[in-house]
């Protein structure tokens, strides 16, 4: 069976690979959406923390012999800790200013973080091996899928689901949502909103680092792996709107699939398709697919 003259094996295969990319987009735009929703900062450094996650996992493995599975837990915690320090020392000082300053500040952080890693480890990449039990591939019937990529999809979706659950179904999530709507009033009810902001930023960049560890065995670990990605994620965020968590996850996955499909039909266009979709969405539905009109 062919679809538009392309064997459906290749077709479904690219869709599955697109879902893998989409899973990364989903986790990253989810983190961006949470940080923006609560801390009101567009975190340009999201990609830098993603890269830092991959690098720390690689370094833990090389120097301390800490393997993939422990890294998957340790690295996000470490990066979340770094993020919380950054929030306390830097971001805190610009709350209340035009959000544009947040974008600029975190952009400066990108230059410092990426530049630092480039000085320490050079520009070329390092390989990071997937754990032994995830080597090999599974025959899904329509394609042979590397096991590791399946794990990426499952764990990314799992993390998204957990995040959704925490925010929508727990008491700390309720406080977060309250702080998003009315920060001062929430504070008046005895919730420590500044602490909440610190934790949120930490959690958001922790998610980025988690995605970074997941990506390490797939991509070469290198200092610029984050910045290209964060620009794509920005476009995805424009398409989906920063308003909702499920919207961010859905848009991320969808754009990953769209990118995969583009590879089938016009491989050269796969790097630009997300931006073209963004331009199209702006023409048709300026507020984004799930967005509310911003004030």
């Amino acid at each position, binding site marked *: 069976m062919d679809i538009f003259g392309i064997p459906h094996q290749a077709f479904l295969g690219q869709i599955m690979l697109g879902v893998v990319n989409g899973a990364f987009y989903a986790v990253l735009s989810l983190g961006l959406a949470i940080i923006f929703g609560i801390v009101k900062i*567009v975190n340009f450094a999201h990609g830098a923390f993603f890269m830092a996650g991959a690098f720390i996992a690689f370094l833990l493995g090389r120097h301390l012999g800490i393997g993939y599975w422990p890294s998957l837990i340790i690295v996000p915690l470490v990066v979340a800790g770094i993020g919380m320090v950054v929030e306390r020392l*830097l971001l805190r*000082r*610009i709350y209340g*200013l*035009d*959000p*544009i*300053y*947040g*974008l*600029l*500040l975190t*952009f*400066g*952080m*990108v*230059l*410092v*973080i*990426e*530049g*630092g890693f*480039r*000085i320490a480890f050079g520009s070329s990449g390092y390989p990071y091996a997937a754990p032994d039990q995830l080597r090999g591939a599974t025959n899904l019937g329509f394609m042979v899928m590397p096991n590791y990529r399946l794990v990426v999809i499952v764990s990314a979706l799992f993390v998204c689901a957990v995040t959704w659950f925490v925010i929508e179904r727990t008491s700390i999530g309720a406080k977060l949502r309250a702080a998003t709507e009315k920060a001062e009033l929430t504070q008046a009810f005895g919730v420590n909103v500044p602490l909440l902001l610190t934790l949120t930023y930490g959690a958001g960049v922790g998610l980025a680092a988690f995605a970074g560890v997941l990506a390490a065995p797939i991509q070469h670990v290198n200092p610029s792996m984050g*910045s*290209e990605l964060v*620009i*794509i994620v*920005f*476009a995805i*965020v*424009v398409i989906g709107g920063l308003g909702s968590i499920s919207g961010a996850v859905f848009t991320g996955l969808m754009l990953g699939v769209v990118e995969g499909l583009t590879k089938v039909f016009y491989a*050269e266009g796969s*790097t*630009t398709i*997300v*931006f*073209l979709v*963004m*331009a199209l969405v*702006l*023409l048709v539905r*300026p*507020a984004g697919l799930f967005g509310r009109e*911003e004030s």
Partner: protein
Amino acid sequence: MTIPPIPRAVLIALGALALALLVAVPFFPTVIYPVFVMRIMCMALFACAFNILLGQTGILSFGHAAFFGGAAYITGYGLLHLGWAPEFSILLGVAFATALGALFGALATRRSGIYLAMITLALAQLVYFVFLRLPFTHAEDGMQGVPRGTLFGLLDLRSDLNLYFVVMAIVALGLAAVYRIVNSPFGEVLRAIRDHEPRALSLGYPVARYKILAFALSAGLSGLAGSLKVIIYQVAALRDVHWSMSGDVILMTLLGGMNSVFGPVIGAGIVSALYYYFSAFGGWVTVMVGTVFIVCVLVFRRGVAGQIRHMLAAAPNRPAASPSSSIKDNQNASH
């Protein structure tokens, strides 16, 4: 809009001094490298053109590398592949940048604030990938060996001395254009949009069209800077269309002072000097630029020009500056 409390005579004296120094530069190549000064002049024009959007209209574009680098490639294409004279190649580059700016503006101004910044960043990345793919750009190698040509069939630009004064004249014209745009009824409307967009709308101004025109003008003049850059260096490279170039121009503007028309010139000088004199430190330059960025955003949002003006206004023997109407000024003043 705050009027600088600096006397006109002082400004004219400073301008004359700067002009005299610039004219002297090519005759003392051992003191300062003329090509480096040409780069500063390009970057000064780029930053002032960028500031038509940021400082005057209150729009943060994160995609100005597309106009600068795009025009550099297109002008280079005109010189190298079409065999056009420099004046027509520059016009071609500027026309390309202007059209691209109008397109960016039409798309990006459908949103505002940080979304607009993200949109311009994404569109510029699209342009980056297109130039990466186009055969004449030679991807990572860059477009090399662009001939400088002969301006108007008279001035041989292969001579660094000729080129220096041509660049100086064109940059002066470009800066004059920026000044004219800012100090025109059109510029007044841009500031009205910046300070209170709904009010400008309710007064009947077609705000969307004004923003798009501001985008096109800013992009065209940024393109002029890019076109000059390719003629000076005879190379158009991916670095010119890369997002880090968009970041550089933002930093120049922020550092120089976005609430002043020519403040970004100072920022362009400082940032260019940072890259030039510290190039031996390799990767550390990026870290330094990032640190300057962070410091600027945290504690130096007025920029150099704004700081000077603030100190002059605060001096006891001077009348206090009039209360500012700019949102950005107020933000700066409260911290």
